[in-house]
């Protein structure tokens, strides 16, 4: 099925939990609320016409106003592609772990926790990953992070 048919099918099956977003330039992009995340994930993976069983990527984004967590999925059986994102305000940056749905999510979520500071509920294994063991300088990928030995490239 092509992109428009897929979009209609998703809108029908999701019953309002997934709203289309205009920011996706090439593939389909939807907005999902944090409380609906597990329902959406299970529906996408298990429905017999969708079967999105392959998790490509989870990225954390700090837009300057809020956090966003972007999930990229694909279906091996039907050769489909889709993205959706969850918006989180700065003061309530908690998201539920999807590692029961897609085991590949475990390390992606651990990295988001370590570099952005977004808390992951029900993960069970959140500890030091990419940064040195004695790192105490905060969450480096946030836009407002700074440190004494962080040298920025001068703007010409």
């Amino acid at each position: 099925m092509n992109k428009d048919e897929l979009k209609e099918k998703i809108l029908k099956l999701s019953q309002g939990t997934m709203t289309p977003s205009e920011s996706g330039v090439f593939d389909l992009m939807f907005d999902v609320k944090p409380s609906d995340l597990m329902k959406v994930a299970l529906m996408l993976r298990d429905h017999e016409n969708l079967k999105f069983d392959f998790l490509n990527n989870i990225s954390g984004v700090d837009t300057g106003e809020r956090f966003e967590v972007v999930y990229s999925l694909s279906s091996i059986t039907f050769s489909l592609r889709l993205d959706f994102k969850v918006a989180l305000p700065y003061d309530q940056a908690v998201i539920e772990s999807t590692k029961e749905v897609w085991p590949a999510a475990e390390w992606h979520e651990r990295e988001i926790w370590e570099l952005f500071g977004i808390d992951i509920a029900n993960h069970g294994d959140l500890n030091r990953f990419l940064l040195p063991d004695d790192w105490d300088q905060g969450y480096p990928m946030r836009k407002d992070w700074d440190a004494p030995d962080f040298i920025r490239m001068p703007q010409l």
Partner: protein
Amino acid sequence: MGLIKKVPVYAEQIPGGGIVATQLESILSHSQACSMWYLLFATACCAIELMCTGASRYDFDRLGMIFRPTPRQADLIIAAGTITKKMAPRLRRLYDQMAEPRYVIAMGGCTIKGGPFYYDSYAVEKGIDHIVPVDIYIPGCPPRPESLLEGCLHLQKKIKSQKLADWHEK
């Protein structure tokens, strides 16, 4: 090696004994320079060029250099690749485990001053010369195998010009 260091001290006291020390120096430094065994320490992109230099076309073995996997059997570290803050203590530990006389070649821009990762990176150690004492710097990103071979030839020249009294703790 401790006994050999005492030879110049005693040899100079005998008239004409300086010749003994000089000949001994040249034999020892020549044999050391022509048989440097390097530790296989490779982190990032320069590792592939190091591998290529050790392979068929540009051969390291003709200079007498073969790779050893353990620092106890090596007398040269070619630090190839970016050293991050997490990896820096391990590099120092490997250097400490080597037996003297030992030498360090800093290969590639990242080990000289951070390379392309100097600006805007929070986890890269900008150069290795505050971790281990470096003898030869080879610039490039990554340096060609010919550059690496020339660096090793410079190191050989440096070793051959060393005096016995210079083999002190670094």
